[in-house]
């Protein structure tokens, strides 16, 4: 059962990474990037690295999202390219 879940996590990870690159709305890109971080944290849990997963969940899916949203608030919400 475990490897099916891992494959699913990897698929969500790759889809999230590609759509974060492609999307024009930067706020949506930040949310998708948080999904990416959360998925990589889940993959680290499945590999048994709980400490690293904890750090990734707290920093990647929490703090970095807040800082990115602040940067968007102070600049523009649409990507130029």
């Amino acid at each position, binding site marked *: 059962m475990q490897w099916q879940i891992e494959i699913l996590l990897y698929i969500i990870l790759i889809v999230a990474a590609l759509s974060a690159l492609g999307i024009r709305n930067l706020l949506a890109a930040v949310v998708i990037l948080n999904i990416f971080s959360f998925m990589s944290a889940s993959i680290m849990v499945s590999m048994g690295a709980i*400490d690293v997963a904890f750090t990734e969940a707290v920093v990647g899916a929490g*703090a970095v999202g807040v800082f990115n949203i602040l940067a968007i608030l102070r600049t523009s919400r649409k990507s130029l390219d």
Partner: protein
Amino acid sequence: MRIIGLLIVIAFGSLLRYGVFFFPEWGDPASPPSLHVSPHYIEEAIAETAVPNLVTAVLADYRGYDTMFETTVIFAAGLACFMLLRVLQRQVPECRLYRHIPTGITLRIEKGGKLPTESGSFERIDSNWVPHDLIIKSTSRFITPFLQIFALYVIAHGHHSPGGGFQGGVILGAAVIMYAISYDLRRSIQRIGEQATAVLGSAGVLIYAGTGALCMVLGAAFLDYGALAGLLGVDPVMARSHGMLIVEIGVGIAVSAVMVWIYYNLSSAGRHDEGL
């Protein structure tokens, strides 16, 4: 231009993928680190440091030098945000918005107008972001103490379960950030000022480096916590565990203060007046 960029990305991506073939297999028992470094940690860590969580033992004791400079890097990040963003001269904004609390009417006062006193029935609000939601305010008020206690637990219990100074520090900083988002920035700055965050950030790094220097004063190597046994009144093995706790507390203080410091500078574009 896009095609050139895509080609460069594909070329370097396949180069990286090619490099991965030379890595040892994941969990390979014959790879160089698994031959002598990891077995030593796994077999001896509990006997040498009395810390059940191997990750913390490696992070804060065996590789303590590394972690000290990681903390320094985080402090330097906070300092860089301060240097780049902070506007030190006070500018009077074009207009200020106030809310009359009993009626909910918003007042707009132009530059030079007479400002109402903060106490009493007037409350200053931001021009671009007006958080005025009873549910969000009450929920954040309710959650904050639990969040802070959980952060302290993560810092203090990092030896025995996953966690440690970095994670706990970020959660502790996030509690303050949540307060600032759900109320406003000025109220948060009244509670924890900018100077407090700067002083606490450097104090955390100082606790870490000072513990290492104290070990040197007591005649051992830098960050060899076994030397603290006499001061703490325990045997050298237990002293390494306690030394790790002291160091983790330093990391937690530094990380939480720097998180809040970066938040203050980023959210208000360095003015510390109006912000998210």
